[in-house]
Each structure stands twice: as C-alpha cells, then as structure tokens.
C-alpha cells in the first residue's frame, strides 16, 4: 500500500457538490491570478532592487498558487484557454481589491494591498486545511508554507512606511481607498452556493466568520501604527461599507476589463485558440 493515496476527484461528487467545489476554486484561482498580474506591473519599478525582487517573487508564488487551483478546475473538464485566455471577463469572481490599478509610483499601495490580502488569504487557507475535498486539502499546506513571508514582507514594510510623516500619510490615503475593496474578499459569489460550500465541509469556516477574524487581526495592527481604519467602531460591516462593485458577484470595475484585454492581447494577436505548450502536459496523458 502506498503512503500516497489516490485522491478522489470530481467523479466522486454529486452535481451540487461539484458546483460548490468549482465555485470555491474559481474564487481562489481568480484572486491569485489577477493579483499576480497586477504585482508584475512593479517589476523594474519598485523603489529598490531588493523590494523589486521580493515583490516579483511574491507574484511568482501567487501565479504558482493560481495554477494549483486552476489545475483542479481542469479536473472538472475545463481547459486552460477556457479558464483564462478565452474566458468571458464578466465571469471572473475575484475581489475588486486585486483588480484595481496601482496608484502610479505609490509604493504604499502594493504594501497595503498585500497586507490586507495576505492576512485574508492566510485565514481562508486555514479554513481549507480540513476540507472535505481531498485535492484541496492536499495542496493547502504547500501554499501556506510559501505564503508566510508575504505577510512578513508586508508587515515589515508597513511598519517602516508608517514611521515617517509622509509615509504615514500615504499609507493612510491608500488604506482609505483600498479597505472597502478588501472587505469584498469575504463577499459571496452566490449566497446559496457559499452556504453549500460550508454545509459540505469544503470550507470549514463561513465567509462571515473569516471576515470577522480578519478584522480582529488587521484592525488592531493598523491602529497600532497610528492609522485610522475606515470602519464603524463596533466593527460591524454593512452594505454601506462596501464599494459600488464587489467583484465576487462577477461585477467589476472598468479597470478589470482593461487588464483582461492587456493580458489576453498577445494570445489573440497571435491568433491562438488554445494555450501554447512547450511540451505536453503530464496531467493530460
């Protein structure tokens, strides 16, 4: 008997379970892919060589993680072209936090964004560690292991940026702009399907519970840096706190459609109809 069991997959799921798993995978994969896509805009533009390398490496990590989740969607019969290059941009379910363009040249933006995002990602991965879908559970530990320094990087930078007057001001301005969008990380794609994701144990914490834990983590820390977090004193999040478009429900800002056009431009320019491979994919054998 092998130490490694073969992991049950889509064929072992009932249709409503399949829909729940797929919905969760799209949430995860789209967030990671789009954020990585945005991060790469800082390549050769970050304030120092080291910060450039760090953020580029974080982008590479997120692309690797996006691939792990898209891989699992391929198990359901989807192909890479359908998942990304030829997918209707109006079907992506990432949070608006990851699609917004960076304020030009403002290093506070990727740092605040990364901090808000990576704390949320840490929590949502924890809620998958005991997932009832074995292929998700199998991958979570590896991803968590690669995520830790993202939070460390963002936290260290936030402390430094917030310690000078100009830096503090920039961080505060960025926080005011991004925080409502960060709240959308915990919004449902579809409330009924999200309830099923929880009911089937695919995710072991509800979005509301995760959102609450996230607030309990990020609000005290940001306040300890002397920052004002734009949220009601009792910590309650209402619809008024959310931005006009939340992303998760597949409604997006115009910036997303520009970004989509940009990253699919070459694919269409070269007249492709499938994702080009240097060699065949072992998963396809």
């Amino acid at each position, binding site marked *: 008997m092998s130490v490694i069991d073969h992991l049950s997959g889509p064929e072992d799921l009932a249709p409503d379970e399949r829909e729940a798993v797929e919905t969760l995978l799209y949430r995860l994969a789209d967030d990671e892919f789009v954020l990585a896509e945005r991060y790469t805009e800082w390549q050769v533009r970050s304030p120092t060589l080291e910060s450039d390398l760090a953020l580029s490496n974080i982008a590479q990590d997120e692309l690797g993680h996006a691939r792990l989740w898209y891989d699992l969607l391929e198990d359901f019969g989807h192909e890479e072209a359908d998942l990304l290059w030829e997918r209707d941009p109006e079907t992506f379910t990432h949070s608006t936090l990851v699609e917004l363009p960076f304020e030009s040249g403002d290093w506070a933006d990727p740092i605040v964004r990364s901090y808000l995002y990576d704390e949320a990602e840490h929590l949502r991965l924890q809620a998958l560690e005991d997932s009832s879908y074995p292929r998700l559970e199998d991958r979570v530990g590896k991803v968590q292991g690669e995520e830790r320094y993202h939070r460390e990087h963002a936290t260290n930078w936030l402390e430094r940026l917030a310690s000078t007057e100009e830096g503090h001001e920039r961080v505060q301005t960025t926080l005011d702009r991004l925080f409502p969008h960060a709240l959308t990380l915990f919004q449902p794609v579809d409330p009924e399907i999200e309830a099923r994701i929880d009911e089937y144990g695919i995710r072991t914490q509800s979005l509301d519970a995760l959102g609450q834990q996230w607030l309990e983590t990020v609000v005290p820390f940001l306040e300890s840096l002397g920052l004002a977090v734009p949220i009601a004193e009792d910590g309650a999040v209402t619809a008024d706190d959310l931005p006009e478009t939340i992303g998760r429900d597949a409604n997006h800002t115009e910036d997303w459609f520009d970004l989509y056009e940009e990253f699919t431009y070459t694919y269409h320019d070269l007249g492709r109809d499938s994702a080009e*491979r240097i060699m065949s994919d072992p998963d396809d054998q």
Partner: protein
Amino acid sequence: MTDDTTPTDPSSEFAGTDRDDRAHDVDVAFDPDADATPCAYTEYVERGEVAGLPATGEDAAGIEREVWDALYDVEDPEMPVSIVDLGLIYAVELEAIESDLESHEDDVHVRVIMTLTYTGCPARKMLTEEVREAAASPRGVASSELELVWSPEWSLDMVTEQGKSDLRDFGLSV
C-alpha cells in the same frame, strides 16, 4: 530547490531604521535580535521525517528496478542531484495491463506520484515530462503516467543521504 527560499531580506534596506517593540499579532518568525546568519531570510525548513517518504525503490527488482534506475538518471533542472535523491518521488506503481508481470513484455503501465519543491516552479512542465518519459523507457513498460501531489510537503528532510552529499559537492550547506 533554490526557489523554495525567500528571495531577499526586505528589512536590510532600512537597516538604520529603528524597529520598535510595537506588538502586532502576525505570527511571523523574524526576530530582529537574533544572531545574524548567512542568509537570515532563507528558510531551510525541516518538517520532520515522514514515514515511508520519499520513495527510493530500495527493494525494487525486475522491471520495477529498471524504472527506478531510469528515474535516478533524471536530475533536478538546477542542481546536479537525482530527483529521487532530492526526495521528489513519493511512489512508483506498476500495473500489468493484460497479464502478469513475469510472462509478458511491453504490457506494464507505470504510475509515478511525485511532488515539486515549489508551486511556482518554472521548470514544472519540463521536469514532469522528463520523469514520465524516463518511467516509460525501460523495456517492458508500455506506458506511464505522472501524478503531482503537494502533501506531505517536500522539505529538506526528504533529501536522501546521497542527495545531501551531492548537494554539498555542489556547494550547498545542507
């Protein structure tokens, strides 16, 4: 494997900036007061040994032995170390397609279960295809397939003694 390290020390850019003792509840391990190490942010994680892993084909014989020998010949794309000694192979399974393994040739299907050191590994396609081809190369093997798994997580503890020796020869401190 080099991809498994943290790229840079972000704090060194501002070495002169005072870090205060402001508490924050991020459970990160960085300790500014710890003794400096050659690369403070390079994390060679030891996660403890996992019983039965990695698979090394120690007791394999016959066609299975030949499959293992072929896998041993595949090297990491960045370092001169066999992927078996690096600890990437978690299982090799042989399956007779039509009849028993002894009496027929070219009727064995091989399934390799392996992991990678890093999810963002840019050499993933190249390496996994090379492994799959190697597994199919011995006479008597009709086909092969490869499954990537991500747990148990690969760590330095997966590297065999031979692998550690090869990595040391290459100049790594392991």
